[in-house]
Structure formats: C-alpha cells, structure tokens
C-alpha cells in the first residue's frame, strides 16, 4: 500500500518549548513541482518547522495535511514518502559510505538496496570512496552522501536544512541541478537556507520567518537578498501579518 500527495498544507501551526515560543501560527501551502525556501535569521524557527514537516516533532497547535491526511492518519506510509537532509547529517561515521546507504535503503524497504546505494554513490561522486568510513570524509562529501541518503527511497516531499553548507562551487551547482530535476519530477521540496546567492533563481517561493512568525511569502522578482532584507525590515514592525500565497500565483518554474 502506498500513499501519495500533491500538496502539503501547514495550517496555523505553533510550537512551544515550555514557555518559549519557537513557532507561532504558521500557515502556508507547498505544491508538487515547487521548491519552497524557508528563509530567516538564526532562531527564526526554520529547523523546528522542518522537524514538524518531517513528523519528528508534533505541533503544539494547528495541523499539517499531506494531501488529505495528517501525519497521525498516514503514519508509516507518510514516513516512506519523506526525505530529510538535516543539519546533522544522519550518517554513521563508523560505517562506510556504501554501508550507510545500504542500511538506510533496507530500513526504508527499498527493493534492490545494493544497486540503489551504488547509484547514490555514483551521483554523489563518491563511488571511488564507497568503502571508506565516513569519519574521513570532508563536510562537503558527507553533505553529498547525506543528500543521497535522503533521496534513496524516492521521497515525495524532500526537506532540506542548509543543503549548501560545506559544498564547494561545483558541488553547490550540482545540487542546484539536482533540485531542479526533482522539481521537474513534480516532487515537493522545502529548503531552509541562509545561502541567498545560491538560492536566488532556484526557489519558486520563499516563506520568510522571524522570531517564529511567518512574516511573508515571497514570490517577487529581483535579487533575492534585497527582497529578503525588505521582508525582514517590514517584519520587524508591529502588526506585520502572515501572507498566504496569492491565488493567482504563477505555476512553479
């Protein structure tokens, strides 16, 4: 039995840690074939939101619907359709690159785990280092391996937390190309990033967060960095409101 969905709707989601508010009344929708950016300064709530989207955290209030179901309703069927590249890379440093990919492929029930891991290693440019333990890898190599780990099981929704960290220019360009391919395959991609220069031109829309609040959904034109600065400046003003994507918004690129 499989589960599929074309959109993820975040509805009035809040998350509190004791008295500290990490997210407050977040509402937006992410559609298939779209790369949605999560932008905001440190502590804005981007990673918390990604963890909630990944079903690793439960919201204190509100709900997220994956298609027509919530995480509780879909259960493991939903987890089979989620891929997460977190800031901590979710790799076992004592295992080789191949062992890491094969382990996670088998855990996700991928049919031919060995072949799939070999494909992933090839795509990550790590085929020649497949039998080396991950401890000896640079941050960029681990980042590429972790991305392949997140994609092993063909997730419908890919969640990326700072995906460009540690990547050199060539690797970042390769990742941008890969993300465009995923968009063309009508996957849903949500990426939290501070790397506005790389993200510029890649993101279809961006949710701008500050202090746990959604201060804007950016769909504008012009340099992303300038738009981001303008949103952050406006969001600092009292009375700034969350914006839903416009109904007449253009189809994702």
């Amino acid at each position, binding site marked *: 039995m499989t589960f599929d969905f074309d959109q993820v709707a975040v509805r009035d989601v809040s998350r509190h840690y004791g008295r500290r508010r990490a997210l407050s009344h977040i509402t937006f929708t992410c559609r298939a074939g779209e790369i949605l950016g999560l932008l905001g300064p440190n502590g804005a709530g981007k990673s918390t939101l990604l963890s909630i989207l990944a*079903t690793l955290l439960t919201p204190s209030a509100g709900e997220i619907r994956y298609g027509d179901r919530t995480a509780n309703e879909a259960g*493991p069927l939903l987890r089979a359709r989620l891929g997460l590249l977190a800031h901590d890379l979710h790799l076992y440093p*004592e295992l080789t690159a191949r062992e890491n990919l094969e382990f*996670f492929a088998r855990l996700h*029930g991928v049919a031919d785990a060995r072949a799939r891991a070999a494909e992933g290693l090839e795509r990550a440019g790590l085929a020649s280092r497949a039998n080396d333990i991950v401890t000896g890898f640079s941050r960029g190599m681990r980042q590429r391996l972790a991305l392949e780990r997140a994609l092993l099981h063909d997730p419908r929704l890919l969640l990326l937390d700072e995906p460009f960290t540690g990547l050199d220019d060539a690797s970042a360009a390769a990742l941008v190309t890969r993300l465009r391919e995923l968009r063309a395959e009508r996957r849903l991609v949500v990426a939290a990033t501070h790397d506005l220069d790389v993200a510029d031109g890649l993101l279809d829309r961006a949710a701008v967060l500050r202090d746990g609040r959604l201060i804007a959904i950016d769909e504008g034109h012009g340099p992303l960095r300038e738009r981001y600065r303008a949103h952050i400046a406006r969001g600092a003003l009292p009375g700034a409101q969350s914006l839903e994507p416009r109904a007449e918004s253009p189809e994702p690129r």
Partner: protein
Amino acid sequence: MMFLRVAWLVMRKDLTVEVRSREVLYTTAFFAVSCVLVFAFALVREGRPLEDAAAGILWIAIAFAGTLALGRTFERERHAETLRALMLAPASRPAIYVGKLLGILALLAAVEVVLVPLVGLLFHAAFLSRPVLMIALLVTGTGGFAAVGTLFAAMLVRARSRDVLLPVLLYPITIPVIIAGVRGTAALLQPVPDAEVARMWIALLAFFDIVFVTLSLWTFEPLMTE
C-alpha cells in the same frame, strides 16, 4: 517478518559500528573489571571472600557496566542525530527498539564472558556448578535490565542531563531484577546448589522480562515522539 528484519538490521548495524570502534566494549569491560578488582581488594581477606559476596559483586558489575553501555550506545546515536533518521524510517518503531535492545544484549553478553570467570576466580565462586541455571539467570537478568535501560536511554537521548537521569530512573525500576539475580546466583553458589530456589528466581526474572519488554514495546513510539 518485516518487524524481525528491521530489528536484525538495527542490531547488525550496531554491532558493525561496535566492531569498528570497540569503544563501548572496551570501556564497559574495563569498568566492570576495575569494579570487580576493587571489591576483591575490599572483600577478600586472606584468600577467603565474604559469604555470598560474589553474587552481589557480579550483579553490581553487570548493572554498572550495563548503564555505561546504554549511555555510550545512545550517545553514538545522538552524535549525528541518527536516532532521528531511524525514527523517520517507515519501519515499525518497536522493531527499532528490539534491534537496539538486541545490540546492547550482545555487548553485555561479551562483557559477561569476561566478568563471570573473573568474579569466579577472585571470589572462589563456582558459577558453573549448574551451568544451565547460571546461564538462564544471566540471560533473564540481563534481559530485564537492558529492556528497561534501552527504553530510558532512548527516551533521554536529547535530555541535557541524560548521564545523571539514566541511573536515577533506571536503578529504582530494575532493583527487583538485580535482587532476583543476586538471590538466584547466591542459591547456586551454596555448598550444595539450591536449584529449586534458583529456578524460582529465574521464573520471576522471566516474568519481569515479559512485563518490561511488553511495556517498552507499547510505550516506545509515544515516548520517542517529541
């Protein structure tokens, strides 16, 4: 079938990691041996150990070494947040718990292979006078301790003071297991081993194991959801 496959995968991964690093095995075995040696200096006078001391020392060493192994094993999962990756997999979460439990049991079994002969040697304890009963005591006792310990160690993996909280939570709940282990072992170490009493304690330990494993399987998923 899928449940067992996931448990096997997780256990095999844990053992592969341990075979590569040998970190948990060496530290746990070293700690357990040190513990036994200190007790041997304190409780063995002129070559004669205190009566029934061997049973107590064996189970204290197992409990302390087990706590250390649990902490280190889950610290490893915390380091790169791999426990979250396990939780994100579509696999049954209780199966992941069973895999972790089996990995810890394998580690503790390896430590006990060193520990039992050492305590036997230093305290003149004939642990192998009734080998089947002794092995049954070790299996059921270690199983009960590790069943609760695995649950708590997983639950505390993101707690800031997890190193303090683990023994604080674990020891009060596993005291019945330790007591049953000590009394059962002491019964086997009598000049004439009391097999009936040992069997009674083994049955009690088996009952604890069933209760602890059932409760852990039942609560693992909700406890691991933040």
